[in-house]
């Protein structure tokens, strides 16, 4: 029993020490983005940056970075998020952000597109993109 408790304590530690998520935009993007705006972008409620340019958000595909981001920034579980988007998709009211497979794909996409926003494990961030928030 004690071992089990120790094991679960360790698991908890490893979760709380898990990767910090960095929200990134193209290096040329000068928009101000706070957590609330990022959440609105990822829920399809905000569709443009404050300079008026259309925002092009990308998600990650069901991995731990995505779970972390959904939990900390969007505040919904992946099931709740799926239910949320199904209400919009099947009524023509919105389209969820495209899903990319991993951090590198997001870094490449954001570096290549002026209007992009994405999120990656903050340890993976490089100079090709600009960090607008860490969660």
């Amino acid at each position: 029993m004690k071992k089990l408790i120790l094991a679960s304590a360790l698991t908890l530690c490893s979760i709380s020490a898990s990767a910090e998520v960095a929200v990134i935009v193209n290096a040329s993007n000068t928009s101000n983005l706070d957590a609330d705006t990022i959440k609105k972008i990822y829920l399809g409620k905000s569709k443009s940056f404050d300079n008026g340019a259309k925002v092009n958000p990308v998600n990650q595909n069901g991995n731990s970075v995505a779970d972390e981001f959904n939990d900390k920034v969007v505040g919904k579980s992946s099931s709740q998020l799926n239910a949320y988007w199904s209400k919009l998709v099947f009524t023509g009211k919105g389209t969820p952000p495209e899903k990319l497979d991993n951090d590198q794909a997001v870094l490449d996409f954001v570096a290549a597109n002026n209007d992009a926003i994405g999120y990656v494990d903050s340890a993976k961030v490089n100079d090709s993109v600009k960090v607008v928030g860490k969660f």
Partner: protein
Amino acid sequence: MKKLSVAVAVCAALVSSYTSAEVRINGFASIVGGKSLDSDSTLYGYDDNISFKNESVFALQLSADLQDKLSATAQIVARGDNDFDAEFEWAYVTYEFSDELQLSAGKMRVPFYRYSDFIDVGYAYRWVRPPQSVYNIPFSTYEGLSLLHNTQLGDWDSTLQVIYGGFDGEIDAVSANDKAELNNFAGINWTMSRDWLSLRAAYLVAETSFELDSNDSTGAALNGLEDILRASNLTSLADDIAIDEDNSTFIGLGFSIDYNDILFDAEYTQLEVENSILAEQSQYYASVGYRLDDVIIHFTYEDNDDKHDSSRFDKIQAIPSLNAAVNGALEGVRAQSNVYTIGARYDFHPSAAFKIDFSRFEDDITDTETDVIAVGIDLVF
């Protein structure tokens, strides 16, 4: 024919766009099995034999961004209770004037209720089926226009929709196959949401005509009564039985709360087709739920009350037999019932949910009860 042409036009738009646009395919499905626990009464289409067909649905949606700000969408739905024959239930094109304003034209859902737009997408709500005492209008689509305005008002998200169009088709309302036609069908609905609270109000009007099926016993009886009244020169009474270009109004009010894993929803609706055999209807439901990680348990109470105002009775006391026949017809459409549903939803997969609902329907007029149990799996893909 008209409906087909809308569908074909949207398909043509989807197909012709393949060189320049990305076509997205999404879908949803519900596989539901259920049965009535009573051998002599049916509810939601279930008798005492288990059916996996009755409430199962499979749907595919194709959408294409044609070019700047223009998109085309078609949703093909196959229903078990229609032998899984695939039909276009949505087929429309949308033009986005801005981030906040879009106009759609084609075949779409009528926004009667809070869950109308995604009524078939079981994954989007907690019940096996939305409360049927309220969700009881026997058609759900229209052909026409929809103007949608989304904006932020302070901390509130506001969604305002205005629709205009018409509906014609066969529905199961008075007789089994009423030929229904709704013209000048117009409506407005407004949803305001903020954090854990969402409020909605809807108002729709139409000019409604039904041609009742004479092969159906109710249809034949009402058509016969109308004919006798006309033959007796009781034109205005005959007009009050007929459903012919009658002004109709629908009012819907609702709210939902999702606070600290406590869920609370309610909707109230009222429907009137003036000067017709159709009774004035008012119904509501209230539903509470509790979310425990991936499981939601819920309880729902529904109430339905359909009746004619007392002023509609005893109009021709000079002719007792006819008076009794009219009274009988008016009384015949009366309905009063309650439903209690207890159920659970389990999100066992990021794109799939398992559900089980037990519902008890109480008919206050016949003083009978019917129990139905249903289990289902809802998917989105």
